[in-house]
């Protein structure tokens, strides 16, 4: 069934190329209208199957529209709109085209009904995201961008290999629930590819490596699409995969641990993406309706508040040029609006009641409770405390309050504040009227977030986390350090191999050559000398002996060889006689 349908992703990808040909107001209008049109299109779209193309004997479905795809498409289009408002002041067409292509590719991946179109948009996403990093045009950003490409080529190859194997086994390219194939090579490869994009450690170090290097505006787009489209793909294909429960919970804590050590404001926030995606991965692993609803809802809320947080940190970066917490402080006087809007995002991610995180994160935590998994429940709650500790307390404390360093700053351009305002409104609306979001989720929602126990326990948790923060404030002073993560293997691994080659390996080679010297000198040469002796004494003597013997025999024979014909005839006659005698008597 193919109906008239314009793909909202293709609308953004193709529409982006109008921008380089526009100027001034028209350009800004197009920048807003494109994502706005995509958003409207997603909102009015009805579930069904659209855009089916036959290619290589396979059905390629560009528009599989169901409730799960729709809810992700709403938030992707919405954050694309907010991100474009945030970048209105930027005069760099390449960035805008890359950002819109990236958003369009994410929408394409969400609506992809088969692996072929999924792979196409998956790769386009990786490419356009890398360009967004590269366009900061600093050496560090270019290096990080290329590392990003490197990791995502690995992920893309895993996906492609998985798809080909899956196709050869099943003969179908449809992208649906993969649990019947659990344990097969195709299942594992596709899972790895999705986990790379979801930034699941140890495959996720690319995220805190690349995102803080992007431009202030580009980072807002980056936070939204890659990890969350991976969460979408995991919900679609891998719901109820047990390993994801533990992996997700560990990931939630991992991000928090690294955030303690982090000094770079946007890298701290990047580690919190990993932590928050951990909740979603855990929800996917739990696989119950509540958990999958929770993972979806949390992805929705997360995209908005994380964009808001990155916009806040980006505004500070834009105005002051500073990115390290150890250089900041006292900005609240100059940037009160930025601070207030940032704090809305911080309250939302920290799950403060009446903000969006409270009504979405708790769905996943409650799903862990309903499945009677105490350890998971405790880990997720611990990570919750850590989230508030960093995003709600540490970052604003050191960035906006803390030691006043007499920095000169002002509020960022109006469009940045408007974009932050839009995201902040969304965070509060979801938090106050959760039914707005709940009614869009893939399964029916019976969950009630505002219970006495939940509200009081959350307030207690947050309040006493704040107490702990101020008790150990001295310990938390940002230090100018970097933390080792698994990106070490491809950033310093080469150098380490070289050092190893020059150090340990060179010593090993020296030892081997010394050993071979000893073997050569003592053993091989010794054996050679022995063999020479044997040759001299034995073989030569034997040869000389044989020679002499031959000489003596030939001397004796010479006596017989007189040269007289009569003697030869006599010898021949004697021989014949002897032969006849032998014949006669022998028989």
């Amino acid at each position, binding site marked *: 069934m193919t109906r008239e349908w314009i793909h909202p992703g293709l609308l953004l990808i193709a529409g982006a190329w109008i921008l380089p040909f526009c100027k001034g107001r028209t350009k800004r209008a197009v920048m807003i209208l494109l994502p706005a049109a995509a958003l409207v299109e997603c909102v009015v779209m009805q579930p069904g199957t659209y855009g089916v193309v036959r290619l290589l004997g396979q059905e390629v479905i560009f528009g599989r529209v169901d409730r799960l795809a729709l809810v992700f498409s709403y938030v992707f289009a919405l954050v694309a709109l907010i991100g474009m408002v945030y970048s209105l002041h930027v005069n760099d067409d390449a960035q805008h085209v890359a950002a819109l292509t990236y958003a369009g590719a994410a929408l394409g991946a969400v609506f992809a009904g088969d692996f072929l179109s999924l792979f196409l948009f998956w790769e386009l996403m990786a490419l356009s995201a890398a360009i967004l990093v590269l366009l900061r045009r600093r050496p560090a950003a270019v290096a990080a961008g290329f590392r990003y490409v490197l990791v995502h080529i690995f992920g893309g190859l895993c996906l492609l290999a998985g798809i080909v194997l899956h196709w050869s086994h099943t003969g179908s390219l449809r992208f649906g629930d993969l649990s019947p194939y659990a344990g097969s090579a195709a299942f594992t490869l596709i899972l790895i590819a999705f986990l790379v994009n979801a930034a699941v450690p140890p495959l996720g170090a690319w995220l805190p490596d690349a995102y803080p290097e992007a431009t202030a505006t580009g980072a807002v787009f980056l936070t939204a699409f890659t990890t969350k489209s991976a969460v979408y793909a995991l919900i679609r294909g891998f719901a109820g995969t047990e390993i994801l429960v533990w992996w997700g919970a560990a990931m939630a804590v991992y991000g928090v641990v690294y955030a303690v050590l982090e000094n770079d404001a946007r890298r701290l926030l990047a580690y919190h993406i990993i932590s928050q995606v951990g909740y979603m991965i855990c929800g996917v692993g739990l696989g119950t309706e509540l958990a999958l609803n929770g993972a979806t809802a949390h992805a929705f809320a997360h995209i908005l508040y994380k964009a808001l947080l990155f916009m806040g940190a980006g505004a500070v970066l834009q105005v002051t040029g500073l990115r390290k917490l150890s250089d900041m402080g006292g900005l609240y006087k100059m940037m009160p609006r930025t601070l207030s809007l940032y704090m809305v995002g911080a309250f939302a991610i920290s799950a403060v009641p009446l903000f969006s995180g409270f009504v979405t994160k708790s769905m996943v935590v409650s799903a862990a409770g309903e499945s009677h998994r105490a350890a998971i429940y405790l880990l997720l709650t611990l990570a919750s405390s850590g989230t508030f500790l960093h995003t709600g307390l540490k970052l604003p404390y050191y960035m906006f309050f803390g030691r006043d360093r007499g920095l000169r700053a002002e509020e960022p351009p109006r469009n940045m504040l408007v974009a932050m305002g839009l995201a902040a409104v969304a965070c509060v609306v979801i938090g106050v009227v959760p039914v707005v979001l709940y009614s869009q989720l893939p399964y029916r929602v019976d969950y009630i977030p505002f219970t006495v126990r*939940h509200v009081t*326990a959350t307030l*207690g*948790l947050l*309040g*006493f986390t704040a*107490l702990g923060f101020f008790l150990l404030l001295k310990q938390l002073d940002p230090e100018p350090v*970097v933390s080792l993560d698994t990106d070490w293997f491809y*950033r310093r691994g080469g150098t380490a191999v070289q050092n190893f080659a020059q150090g340990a390996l060179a010593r090993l080679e020296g030892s081997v050559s010394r050993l071979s010297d000893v073997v050569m000198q003592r053993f091989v040469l010794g054996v050679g000398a022995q063999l020479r002796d044997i040759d001299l004494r034995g073989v030569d003597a034997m040869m000389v002996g044989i020679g002499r013997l031959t000489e003596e025999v030939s001397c004796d024979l010479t006596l017989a060889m007189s040269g007289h014909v009569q003697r030869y005839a006599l010898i021949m006659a004697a021989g014949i006689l002897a032969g006849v005698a032998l014949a006669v008597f022998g028989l």
Partner: protein
Amino acid sequence: MTFKRWFHVGLVVFIHFLQNVVTAEWAPGLVVFAVGEIAGPHLFRADHAHFWFEDIPAWGSIYGLVSCLLIIIGSKLLGKLWLTRPENYYDS
């Protein structure tokens, strides 16, 4: 115009509130949170707990403080012993 004025008043109050949070003079006020958590379920009809430990009085407050201290101390130790390197580590 009135809206703009209220917005400014709101902004000033909010910043003032955050400033007070930063000075940490509010710490004794946390007792309210803990007491609220203990009393809340008795005053209103409480939903049922998933685990036994959730019924410990002021469970959220206790676990919040413990989590916060654990995360800070644990991460710092991990950093000191293993994970942190000088800032120019990857450039050298």
